[in-house]
Structure formats: structure tokens, C-alpha cells
């Protein structure tokens, strides 16, 4: 098993005819993801590498039975794209777009909740269940199928951690980029619950960063509801206050949202917190050895 996406996932790519959409559709197909449809208004009837393109997501759902969406559309149109996917009955929406206005996301969140759709992102590298399905822009080859669940607000830092694990022979069940924006869909708490229930996942890694209170909320949840080991790294111990560190959501505002606070909260909840990002793989190796002996 794995969480959220697997070999049964049938993907529609919104924005398939754009540069990014096309490039990553090919990468996803090469990885083995079942991309069954594309969607670009006005381009219905065309085919991209044999994949049928539709004018609306609803048509794609009716014709191809797609159940997940990957969104590669510019920021100004991304909110509309997410709402269309939800309205058309898509249950897993992965929005890769960076730069969506925060207040658009306020609206999208409410709309998606009412329709029971699950959002990954936005501003995320996506989600991958190694060996089964990749919806996103991460390099597939660094991953390896296995038992560690990863959740992260970052892209390349996640690749770094995945690479450290894979080089030690430790595989991953599912890796989820929850997104670097202020308002995001799935958060750590949702994923901790999924991973806790997933029989294939043995341990979890949480990669956090400065800004907001998602890590603190995760700490409270872990204390009460998580029995599997959780390892955490929080980026931004050296980040100056009041500055947005690349991600829209990575800002220490009014003295709140520091890496130190988050590390302390997680530590208190029994999470092993690594301070050196180069040692995440080693720490996980130790945790897994301890469990297996």
C-alpha cells in the first residue's frame, strides 16, 4: 500500500498543452503514471502523445474515468482550475503552480471542502508513491519503493532527504509535498493520520520550515494519535525575522513561527528532531534498525 495515489490512480493533466504541462506529462508517463487525459479549453479533440485532450475536466471524467488531477496552469487561472476539478468529481487534486494569490486560496479551500475534494499543494513538487504513481515534477529516479512516509513543505530539500534514504537502501511508501504557501490543502496532521493507518509505512519524516503553526499542530496530533516513529527536520534556524524566505509561507511574523519553537514543540511530542540536514538519512537508518532488532 501507500497513501493517496497508487497504480490505480488515473490522472488528468490540466494545462497539458503548455510547456511545463507537456514536459512533466511525458516525465510522469515515463515513470509509469497512468495519465489518461489532458485538458486545455479550446484544444479538445487533439491528442498529446496519444493522450486525448478535452475542453473541460467533466468531459475528461466522463470519457476516461480519471480520478486525479495534476494542475500546470499559470497562477492567475489556477484557482479556477482547482475548482473545476473539484466540481467535476475529481477527488485528488495536485496543484503544482507557484504564485497563486493567497485570497484566491481562501476561496478555493472553502469550495473544495464543500465538495469533498483533497488538495495537495499548491506550490508543491507533487506526490509520489515510488514504483506506482508520480503526480508532480520530482525526479522519479532518486526514489525507491519502501516503508518511509515523507511529508514536506519544500521541493529540493525533500529530494535531498529522499536521496539520502535511497542511497542507504531505505525506500519510501509515499512522499507528499504539502506546499510552500500560506494556505495549503493537505497538511501534516492529515498525512500523519494517513501514514499511521497505512500498513506499508513503518516510519515517517516531517520536513518543516519557518512560518505558521503547522508543525506545532502536528506535534499536538503526534502526541495523541501517532504510534509510529516520526523524524523531523525544520529548516530556517538561521533565517532572519520578518523576511519571506523564498516560499510565500516561510516567514517569521511578529516573532512567531521560528524554527526553534517548532523544534521544541516536536521534541516535546516525542519526535526525533535532527538539526543537521545532512544526517536525516543516518538518523532514519538508526530508527529503522532499532525497530527491526
Amino acid at each position, binding site marked *: 500500500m501507500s497513501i493517496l495515489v497508487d497504480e490505480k490512480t488515473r490522472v488528468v493533466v490540466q494545462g497539458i498543452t503548455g510547456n511545463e504541462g507537456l514536459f512533466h506529462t511525458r516525465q510522469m508517463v515515463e515513470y509509469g503514471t497512468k495519465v489518461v487525459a489532458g485538458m486545455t479549453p479550446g484544444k479538445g479533440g487533439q491528442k498529446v502523445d496519444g493522450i486525448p485532450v478535452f475542453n473541460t475536466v467533466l468531459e475528461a471524467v466522463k470519457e476516461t474515468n480519471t480520478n486525479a488531477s495534476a494542475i500546470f496552469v499559470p*497562477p*492567475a487561472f489556477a484557482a479556477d482550475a482547482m475548482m473545476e476539478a473539484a466540481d467535476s468529481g475529481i477527488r485528488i487534486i495536485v496543484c503544482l503552480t507557484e*504564485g*497563486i*494569490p*493567497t*485570497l*484566491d*486560496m*481562501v*476561496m478555493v479551500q*472553502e469550495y473544495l471542502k464543500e465538495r469533498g475534494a483533497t488538495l495537495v499543494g499548491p506550490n508543491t*513538487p507533487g506526490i509520489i508513491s515510488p514504483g506506482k504513481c508520480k503526480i508532480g*515534477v*520530482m*525526479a522519479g529516479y*532518486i526514489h525507491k519503493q519502501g516503508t518511509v512516509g515523507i511529508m514536506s*513543505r*519544500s*521541493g*529540493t*530539500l*525533500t*529530494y*535531498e532527504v529522499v*536521496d539520502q534514504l535511497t542511497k542507504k537502501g531505505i525506500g519510501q511508501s509515499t512522499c507528499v509535498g504539502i506546499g*510552500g504557501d*500560506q*494556505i495549503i490543502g493537505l497538511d501534516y496532521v492529515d498525512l500523519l493520520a494517513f501514514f499511521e493507518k497505512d500498513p506499508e509505512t513503518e516510519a515517517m519524516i516531517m*520536513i518543516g*520550515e*519557518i512560518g*505558521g*503553526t*503547522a508543525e506545532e*499542530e502536528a506535534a499536538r496530533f503526534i502526541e495523541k494519535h501517532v504510534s509510529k516513529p516520526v523524524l523531523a*527536520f525544520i*529548516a*530556517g*534556524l*538561521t*533565517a*532572519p525575522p*520578518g*523576511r*519571506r*524566505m*523564498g*516560499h*510565500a*509561507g*516561510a516567514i517569521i511574523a*511578529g*516573532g*512567531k513561527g521560528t524554527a526553534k519553537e517548532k523544534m521544541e514543540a516536536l521534541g516535546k511530542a516525542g519526535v526525533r528532531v535532527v*538539526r*543537521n*540536514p*545532512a*544526517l536525516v538519512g543516518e538518523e532514519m537508518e538508526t530508527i529503522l534498525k532499532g525497530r527491526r532488532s
Partner: protein
Amino acid sequence: MKIHEYQAKEILKGYGVSVPKGRATETPGEARRIAEEIGRKPIVVKAQIHAGGRGKGGGVQVVNSPEEAEKAAQKMLGMTLITHQTGPAGRIVRKVLIEEGVDIKEEVYLGVVVDRSRACPVIMASREGGMEIEKVAAESPEKIVKEWVDPSIGLKPFQVNKIGYGLGLEPAQVGKMRNIVFGLFKAFYEKDCLLAEVNPLVLTKGGDFIALDAKMNFDDNGLFRHKEIAALRDLNEEAPLEVEASKYNLNYIKLDGNVGCMVNGAGLAMATMDIIKVTGAEPANFLDVGGGATVEMVKNGFKILMSDPGIKVVFINIFGGILRCDTLAKGVTEAVREVNVNVPVVVRLEGTNVEEGRKVLNESGLNFTVAIGMKDGAEKVAEAVKTKG
């Protein structure tokens, strides 16, 4: 994006929020004329910089005549104002706001921000006006009244009542506050703000509410649909190197350390700064060249990075995904050829096209220290810092 107080007041005035009569200027003579137009005393002269705490640093003066206003403006314009928010370097004052003085009965705080956890805007109010709201929240959170706004319904009159009566105001005062709360919220929402704040909102002896200070921070991601707001960006308020970086779509933040770093991805960039610290050195900057960087962007990023004189060692840490390692390597070698680099450069490459990338570095004939893995990279940086002493 931040704007000046006078600009925020101008915007809020358009939304029905009362503000003191006045205008901003760059010259003492004009300051005097504005004071004459106002035609009453006292007059307040306020330095316009993107930082709080101006009063304590000498950036706010109350005067009693147009002549005094001119003198105060003369003194303030061109001065370097240092407050707890500017850092020790301070900011040069280029504009002053000349306003009518307001008789103050009470100071209230009123602000709107986005509540990240609840994914909706929240209005906050407190009778501890004039104080930083974070301080009130930390010391006496019970003094803050909060109202969350349902995004599809919008702000409703009962919520404004809850805020007003929650603050313990008189019925007549709640009535007078209504327009201000609605106006502030509307401005926040329509202009894609991340923060809209009136602090203090003054209750005058005459029983009216007036915005004595105002602050608006805008969502950079929303600026594409607000050209009029984007036009208010004041480059003088930003560090020159950061302005330069933004021209190339690079994300650069200058810090005070000795190890310059160039990384792809914000999370990995922060983690790289952290690991530099773990090894005992200090990061000199944050530089994220992004996922889709070109040779040109990498080259410019490296040049910007190198123009910081405090740098003793450079650490380039790249995990190629979309950004291919050979692209990065080409950008760096081109930049090194153009810039006079006299400090050690440690390069760690991993991911897409890593072999091609390492080959470009090795065949360049330039002196790079190539590291394998982040740990090795950090150790090599630490070593180089020690040798450079």
C-alpha cells in the same frame, strides 16, 4: 510588498476610513505650504520609511506653526532614521507626511490578516491601541477581540457589533466604528493584502474615529491584478543587492555572515544556511536560484553573491531536479571567468545530469572544490573557512 503610511492612508481614505487632513512631500518649503493649507495647530511631521518605531528615533514631531513644520521637515529629510525595525544601518528619510494633529481620547487597534490555519481572513481589535499587536497577544491575549470572516459570505454587520461591543465600546461609538471596520476589510480584500492595520485608530474627544497611523502589506502573488499598487513599490526601501536580484527573478536576502551560498529551492537554501551554522561559520546570504534557472540567472546570481565583501568562502549546493546540474555548472564557470573570484568555491552537485555538471566544472580549468553530498560539502566549507581564518 510594503508601502508607506501616507500611501496606505490614501488608499484607506478611498474606502471611507477617516484619516487626518494632510499630504506627503519631499521638500521643506512644500511642508510649510501643506501646514498652511491645514490651517490649524498642532501639526504633525512624520518621516516616511518602511519601518515602525519612528517616534522613538526622532521621526515624528508635533509642531505649532507652518514655520516650525518647515524646520522639522528640513531636519528630517535626508536624515538616517534608526528604529528597532530598521537594523543598525537605519533608513534614509526621503519623504515626510504633514498632517493635522488629532486630539486623542483613546487609542484602539484594528487590523485584518489571513489566518493560515483556518484559511480565512481574521479581523482583530483591541483597546491597547498604539502597542504592537504581537506584544498584546503574548502578554494579554484576552484583550484582543477576533472575528473570522467567511470568504463566501463576507463581513456581516453583526460581526462588527461583536467587535465593537466586545471591546466594551458605547453604542454610539460602535455605530461610528462600523464604516471603518467595513472599509478596512474591503480594502484588505479588494487589494489582495496580507495585512491591513490601523494602529492606533483614535477615538477623538469629539467622539469620532480617525486612523492616526496605517499599514498595508500586499501579497506579491496578487500584484499582477493591481498595477496601481505595484507602482507604489519604493526601491529605496530595499537593499540594493536585493533589488538587483529581483530583476533576474532571483530570491536573494543579504545576511551578515562569511559564507556565501547559492542553492536551488527555498527549503534547501534555508537548510544550507543552517548547515553552515552547524559547522561553525555564518551564512552571508539566502540565494534561491529556483527550479527553472537558466545559465544567465545562475551567472547573475553568482555575481550578486560575490559583490558582498564579507564573503570568505562560497558554497554552491544544488540538487538538480528541473534545474539541470550542467546548466548550473555552465552558469557558475561563466560567472567565475567574468568576476574576480579570490575565495574558495565549494560546489556540491547532485541529481539530474550530475555527471555532465561535474565534467563542466572539472574541464573549466578553474579552481573549484567539488564535494560529494551535503555533509561532505559542509565539512569542506568549514575547512576552507578555518584556513581563510
